[in-house]
């Protein structure tokens, strides 16, 4: 059994972490306990205008450091990477991409498994995929995200300068009704029917220099959260991006059943796909822009952040076509163009957040328009002396409601936060439960 070193695992997990955050994983135990809700200036860089909003003076606000309990769990029992090993399960590895193991997995959905049974007769074909049928939800499988955090920045007055990666991935896989029925519901294949699967995927990575500027446009008082104070803030962040890698594919794979399923003619897959790829040497200099606005009045705040407004990346791409040659029956990969100029876009994401502080209570909610779907979060926090109690709900990208609960203990200038939260970040969208811990410096 191959056991990769802890160092290699750490590198791999760092690479995994960004897509996970893009899919709504909250690393901060405080946010996690509040349903993953965006908390303004303590949030995720979703709204550049918060750079100009004064940090809350509440004694309950601090800077958090998430503790990677899940990494310890993973390093203690890493998944099998040798495909020839009986314990190897590619779906388990895929689940790590969906839900990077930052937190301790208390209830971990099993990766799909089970024997596949194919029953064949002259004019009958049925496929029982066992648990694998869960890979094909009725509405198709789609996921995607844009991660732009993870770098570092310094603030100088109203300006900020930084460097950060930008990673975008999305994929949408759909089956036609006939194939959906056969694979997901175990319905038998029937003669003279088209069975088609379509997949459209895109991924790109870049690294960028960022220059931001944010300021108060209108307001009263030095502290907008003080009694009688208010402020309207706006910000913009320009990004100069260097493309590192790009790939997209759009393809159909399918077959048409003959009059007799296993008669004189065999069922052969037809395949057609267009692929465009570019490597690190093929990326050009692109640009991007984030915009944001915040209104703060006493205990109330409302923010709108739009990231990647008109973000563009130029590439020199290799364009290829894959298809089945009907004359020879062979599958062919043909090069259509080399060094073809192409400009990719990064989808804009929108975050709308609202928060209301009422005495010891903080109520917050947000709606996030992601790459393919939107999600929503709501959470509450209150303090009893040095003890914080939190709870929240998430409407996630799989259209499921998730639950979270958390607490915090403050001891002087240091606090310990813990959170329990459910999620469906796995291939089969089953509910999992994880525990997050974090340290807070007040």
């Amino acid at each position, binding site marked *: 059994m191959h056991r990769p070193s802890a160092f290699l695992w750490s590198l791999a997990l760092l690479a995994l972490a960004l897509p996970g955050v893009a899919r709504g994983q909250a690393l901060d135990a405080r946010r996690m306990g509040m349903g993953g809700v965006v908390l303004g200036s303590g949030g995720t860089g979703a709204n550049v205008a918060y750079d100009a909003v004064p940090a809350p003076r509440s004694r309950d606000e601090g800077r958090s450091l998430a503790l990677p309990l899940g990494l310890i769990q993973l390093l203690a029992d890493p998944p099998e990477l040798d495909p020839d090993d009986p314990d190897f399960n590619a779906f388990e590895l895929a689940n790590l991409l969906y839900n990077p193991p930052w937190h301790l997995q208390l209830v971990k959905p099993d990766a799909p498994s*089970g024997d596949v049974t194919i*029953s064949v007769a002259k004019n009958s074909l049925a496929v029982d995929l066992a648990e694998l049928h869960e890979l094909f939800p009725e509405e198709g499988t789609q996921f995607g995200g844009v991660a732009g955090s993870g770098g570092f920045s310094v603030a100088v007055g109203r300006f900020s300068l930084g460097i950060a990666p930008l990673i975008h991935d999305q994929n949408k896989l759909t089956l036609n009704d006939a194939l959906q029925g056969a694979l997901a519901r175990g319905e038998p294949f029937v003669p003279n029917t088209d069975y088609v699967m379509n997949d459209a995927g895109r991924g790109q990575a870049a690294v960028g220099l960022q220059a931001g500027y944010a300021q108060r446009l209108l307001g009263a008082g030095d502290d907008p959260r003080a009694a009688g104070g208010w402020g309207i803030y706006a910000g913009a962040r320009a990004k100069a991006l260097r493309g590192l890698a790009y790939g997209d594919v759009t393809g159909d794979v399918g077959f048409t059943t003959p009059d007799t399923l296993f008669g004189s003619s065999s069922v052969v*897959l037809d395949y057609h796909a267009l692929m465009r790829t570019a490597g690190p040497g093929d990326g050009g200099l692109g640009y991007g822009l984030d915009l944001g606005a915040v209104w703060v009045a006493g205990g109330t705040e409302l923010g709108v952040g739009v990231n990647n407004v008109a973000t563009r990346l130029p590439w020199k791409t290799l364009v290829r076509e894959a298809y089945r040659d009907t004359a*020879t029956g*062979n*599958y062919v990969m043909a090069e259509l163009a080399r060094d073809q100029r192409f400009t990719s876009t990064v989808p804009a994401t929108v975050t709308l957040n609202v928060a209301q502080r009422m005495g010891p209570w903080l109520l917050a909610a947000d709606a996030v328009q992601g790459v393919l779907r939107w999600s929503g979060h709501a959470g509450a926090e209150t303090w009893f002396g040095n003890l914080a109690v939190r709870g929240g709900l998430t409407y996630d990208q799989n259209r499921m409601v998730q639950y979270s609960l958390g607490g915090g203990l403050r001891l002087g200038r240091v606090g310990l936060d813990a959170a329990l939260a459910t999620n469906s970040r796995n291939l089969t969208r089953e509910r999992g439960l994880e525990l997050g811990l974090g340290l807070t410096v007040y």
Partner: protein
Amino acid sequence: MRTARRASLALALAALLAGCGDRNLVLSVDILSFLSPSQTQSTIGPMPGVPGGAATGEIPLVDDQQIQLFEGLGDASEVKAVTVTARIESADSTGSGTDTLRVYLTSSADPPTSQPPVLTAVVAMTPGVTDTVTAVLDGSPALADLFTRKLVRLSITNSVRGPDVGETLNARTRLIELQAVVIAGRKPV
């Protein structure tokens, strides 16, 4: 430009299976469904009793029938085992004797009967008795491998030995099940 190997639905399914470590692909082939009713039944007799019993020799019921299966399955999977099951129903009106059913399978260019039978079932016929005989063979990986090929060639013969004394044999036999179940795993990378 480069070419890739031909693939098939089964290959796609095997690829899906490939993610699942030690899980199996279970391929159940209803061989009987590929045969016409006239190929699955025979009328025996009249065969009068002669000393030692008269023998018909092997008479083809199915003569080199070609069965199209999946293309490419063998490329992606490694067979582990196969079970071939045959059930024969015999209905005897008069006389006694035996009917030996032989099943031949191959995927080579040679006719199936050039190889030894993969399954042999002997049906004893008793006057006035309708009976069912089941023969089960746990085959070798080589036999299992046949079912991962695109084309399987099938021959079935029966040979009857009549009574050596007593009533003339008149009977009917019918193949009512012929099925192969193949267990295949993922081919090592």
